[in-house]
């Protein structure tokens, strides 16, 4: 019979290999799922994972990869800091929405002024919006010991109603003939977030994502705060003896995650989405949770995982137009990926041994 034997320390090899194994297993299981739906599994997998990179329209889709990966990486890097320290902020979706609303509101307030300073101020406002939204669960946790998972999640639903209010009321385009939705930022150059190099898909969000990866890497490798974060996750009591204040860490980690999610929301709403609408957000806040785990809570890993997850979005869209696969299939596919990753993690922490069953 199979038994698990705890490894003295987690296996570095398996910690690197499990994401790849999980992707492979997801392809097999996803193929099965597509076969059950009556599609050719090989064709579906090829459409999702191969065509966006090397297919007929790859020249355009490769750019889209950066567009989708940017917000995922930004949010996931922020979340990963908290996850490492055992702080479960899972309301990034709400922080993302609030960042977009705050930032867009600042931009729309000065419409149609043209000034180079407008966009940087909007970015700051976006960060502030996400930060404020993240501070609610953080402060409730530190002051009242309230569960941050539930509070941050409840705030997603609150943020969604605020978004509906913004789109239909306080940020609605006065020239929009009564339709919900704000002014389109593409017609407001000072507040728009266009592609920096035409056709590359790279906008300020992508640049910020790359910078964040580097910054987080340095923080974790070289800075005392990074050390404290890692220590609190691995040995909370040792961390307390070393003088790490858990409350300070909660406020810091949640704040960073909230600000990054808020910035991601602002880049999205001023760039690819173009305007505040009831459903401009596409669930990046939740998918980023998968990205953070798939990237092993490591900034460089998250960079790769974000690109991979962006691939499933783009491939998923292609599969839905070309093969008639429902677009929701891709969400199930992403969830499956997280399942397999968590399942494979057993190999990182345990050795599998074949033993004879002991007779009782």
């Amino acid at each position, binding site marked *: 019979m199979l038994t698990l034997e*705890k490894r003295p320390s987690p296996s570095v090899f398996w910690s690197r290999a499990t994401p790849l194994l999980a992707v492979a297993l997801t392809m097999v299981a996803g193929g099965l799922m597509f076969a059950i739906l009556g599609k050719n599994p090989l064709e579906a997998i090829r459409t999702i994972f191969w065509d966006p990179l090397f297919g007929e329209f790859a020249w355009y889709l490769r750019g889209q990869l950066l567009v989708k990966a940017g917000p995922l990486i930004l949010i996931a890097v922020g979340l990963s800091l908290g996850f490492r320290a055992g702080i479960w902020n899972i309301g990034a979706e709400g922080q993302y929405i609030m960042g977009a609303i705050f930032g867009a509101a600042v931009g729309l307030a000065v419409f149609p002024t043209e000034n180079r300073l407008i966009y940087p101020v909007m970015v700051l406002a976006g960060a502030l919006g996400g930060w404020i939204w993240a501070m609610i669960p953080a402060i409730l946790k530190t002051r009242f010991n309230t569960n941050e998972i539930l509070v941050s999640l409840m*705030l997603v*639903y609150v943020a969604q109603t605020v978004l509906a209010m913004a789109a239909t009321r306080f940020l609605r385009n006065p020239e929009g003939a009564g339709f919900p939705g704000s002014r389109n930022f593409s017609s407001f150059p000072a507040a728009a977030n266009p592609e920096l190099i035409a056709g590359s898909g790279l906008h300020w969000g992508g640049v910020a994502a790359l910078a964040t990866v580097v910054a987080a890497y340095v923080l974790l490798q070289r800075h005392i705060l990074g050390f404290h974060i890692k220590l609190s996750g691995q040995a909370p009591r040792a961390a307390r003896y070393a003088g790490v204040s858990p409350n300070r860490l909660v406020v810091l980690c949640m704040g960073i995650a909230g600000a990054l999610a808020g910035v991601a929301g602002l880049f999205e709403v001023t760039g690819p989405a173009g305007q505040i609408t009831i459903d401009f957000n596409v669930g990046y806040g939740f998918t980023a949770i998968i990205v953070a785990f798939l990237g092993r809570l490591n900034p460089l890993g998250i960079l790769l995982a974000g690109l991979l997850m962006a691939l499933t979005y783009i491939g998923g869209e292609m599969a839905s137009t070309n093969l008639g696969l429902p677009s929701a299939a891709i969400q199930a596919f992403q969830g499956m990926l997280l399942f397999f990753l968590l399942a494979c993690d*057993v190999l990182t922490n345990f050795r599998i041994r074949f033993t004879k069953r002991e007779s009782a």
Partner: protein
Amino acid sequence: MMFGGIDPTLLIASLMVASVPIMLAAIGELVVEKAGVLNLGVEGMMIMGAVVGFVAAVKTGSPVLGFLGGAAGGACLALVFAFLTQFLLANQVATGLALTLFGLGLSSLIGQSFVGQRPPLTGDVPFGPLADLPVLGRILFQHDSLVYVSILAVAAVWAVLKFTRLGLILRAVGESHEAAHALGYKVRRIRVLAILFGGAMAGLGGAYLSLIRVPQWTDGITAGAGWIALAIVVFASWKPWRVLLGAYLFGGITVLQLNLQAAGAKIPVEYLSMSPYLITILVLVIMSSGRGKAALNAPASLGQNFHAAR
């Protein structure tokens, strides 16, 4: 009798209906947490129950089979959680989140061709003359059977936890898995069964949403009900009857805000529709801060994985 355009009798009657899904899901999760497992995938299991129950009811034309299907759907997803956390020792928080993300995607996939269809009608329990009683008849005796099932479920969980050997073992496993293991109880088996029970109850609650409360299939039909159920377990400080109280409280808020909207209250609709979530947060704050009372009552092994060295 009317108060500001709202009929209190009708309000109580409809809050009983509105609270069924969260009550079922919460009492299931209470059992899971009593066994020391934190399954955050309630939302995912609920929505799987909602879609599987809906499909089963529409295909067979029988609401009863629909509810059974819903429970089975929730339990199937819970089985994935049980396998990952109990056998592969995956992190319970992360696995619960995965369950929700996967459930939301898969449910929308399954339900896609069922959008816009109507489920078969579930009749009310025939109480005969009792239903015609003034006021009381309207409040107590004009409901579908699941309203009574949800109350019975709370009573049954309370009785089992308090008076039976099974309840004692379940609590022992949740309080100290090491001790329970040393005494020879099968920690893993008990936890798996508790997780399956929790999944089935969440699935049943989800099926109630799509078959009776709404009644149709739309993506994301649960709209956070699973998370509210999790909050209710904290609110109830892991005590069954308080789950009933909590569910009625939240059911009441939900119904009241809908009634206020319908009655044309002067408050903007959005403030009303975000109120259940804000009040959940408020309640969580009060429960968690009350000199750590609620926290002290949480099962000691909650959220910790158990790995028997031998």
